[in-house]
């Protein structure tokens, strides 16, 4: 006799889901790091004075922003590009990084361009060199401006990472599929998987709130807000 025991899938498969979630977190974290570095490079090329570099960067953004992630995944995993055979994790990481770098570069470019020119001149005027200027002024001001769209994009990456299950990376999505293929309990399995995705995305949202609140308070925006509200009344 086959009786349905609520919670059995969750209990039995939980360690496997957890391993899948860790794989998801790992590949997304690595892709965020790679895409941020690459995105920063593309953004600076795009702001460069050399026309050829600007065009190259614009073309990169146009190309990767305009292609589905799935297509890049298939390309790197199945076609053995440039004679390179890579495992699914590596192919997934490269595809996600190249894809997301196009989005990050736009976010970073906008952030860098919005850094107050007067604040940079003030850094010049006390004799900071370009490196010090970047660390002390450009980065802190830019990060404050970039945080909301940046975290937003990280959340999108986390969710889109489910696509890597198609090229057999054992992420949370793939572990879920395996679990309901053997238990036939799709509802409960997807429920657990959904809960785990929500936990991960929620953590990112909390991170965003923490950063915004910290920077907002430091900038004295609370007082500015009060004054703005006061002047409207």
């Amino acid at each position, binding site marked *: 006799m086959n009786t349905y025991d609520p919670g059995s899938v969750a209990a039995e498969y939980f360690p496997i889901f957890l391993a899948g979630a860790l794989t998801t977190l790992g590949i997304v974290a690595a892709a965020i790091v790679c895409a941020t570095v690459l995105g920063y490079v593309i953004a600076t090329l795009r702001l460069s*004075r050399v026309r050829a570099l600007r065009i190259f960067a614009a073309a990169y953004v146009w190309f990767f922003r305009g292609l589905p992630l799935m297509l890049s995944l298939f390309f790197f995993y199945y076609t053995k590009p440039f004679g390179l055979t890579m495992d699914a994790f590596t192919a997934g990481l490269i595809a996600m990084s190249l894809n997301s770098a196009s989005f990050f570069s736009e976010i970073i470019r906008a952030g860098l361009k919005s850094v*107050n020119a*007067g*604040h940079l*001149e*003030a*850094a*010049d*005027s*006390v*004799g*900071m*060199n*370009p490196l*010090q200027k970047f660390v*002390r*002024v450009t980065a*802190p*001001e830019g990060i*404050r401006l970039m945080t909301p769209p940046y975290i937003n994009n990280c959340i999108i990456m986390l969710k889109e990472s489910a696509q890597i299950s198609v090229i057999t990376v054992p992420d949370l999505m793939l572990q879920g599929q395996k679990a309901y293929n053997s238990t036939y309990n799709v509802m409960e399995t997807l429920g657990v998987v959904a809960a785990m995705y929500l936990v991960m995305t929620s953590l990112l949202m909390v991170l965003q709130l923490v950063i915004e609140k910290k*920077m907002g308070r*430091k*900038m*004295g*925006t609370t*007082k*500015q807000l009060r004054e703005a509200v006061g002047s409207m009344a």
Partner: protein
Amino acid sequence: MIGITGLTKSYNSRQVLKDVDLRILPGEVVAIIGPSGAGKSTLLRCINMLEVPDAGRIHVDGRQVFYTPNGRGKLGVLDQFRLTWLRREIAMVFQQFNLWPHRTVLDNLLEGPVIAKGQKRADAVPRAMEKLRSVGLEDKADAYPADLSGGQQQRVAICRALMMDPKAILFDEPTSALDPELVNEVLDIMAKLARTGMTMVIVTHEMKFAREVADRVIFMEHGGIVAEGPPDEVFQHPRLRVYASHLSH
């Protein structure tokens, strides 16, 4: 202290500085006045290379400032590294204050000496507090710039300039962005500073201040110096009287 010869600069095809010569002596307080677009701010900003001239020689404290003129009018990265010495000798106070909004008042004062010059923070803090006290803002050390009035921000900016122990301070319309009732608190600090023997170059529209505080007034129009000399003399110049009559309706 500062020597300028043959300074020339154009934006696109418009010439903003036409072969300007200027000498500023140690301890001298020089006010540069004139209508908008006369090239006053550009001249001032060329002294510490926030604008790169097209031609002309600049000496600061006996050292020649070597620069590479380029199409953009801003310093290239290599020149920025090479000319940090210049910016550490010549401080600047901006029209828009330009305090760093993400740092407290105290940290704004410490950035120059600690980060740029590499002094010990512990040595710089007492000096910073002393500067703040001299402008009556010692209780604002831990506040953020956004929590201060414009006049208070500009007083902090003057302290930030002083923290560099500069040979001279450039003031680029320091009171133009202030509400009228806040102008005097900044001018008072500047007058006090002038009496200490600080070399000051001040671009301003405050005629009364220029007349009372400056040792020498420079009147500029159309990218050139029209008149210069002691305030009482220069204010008699016919061109300046025309300009001044436009100011006071």
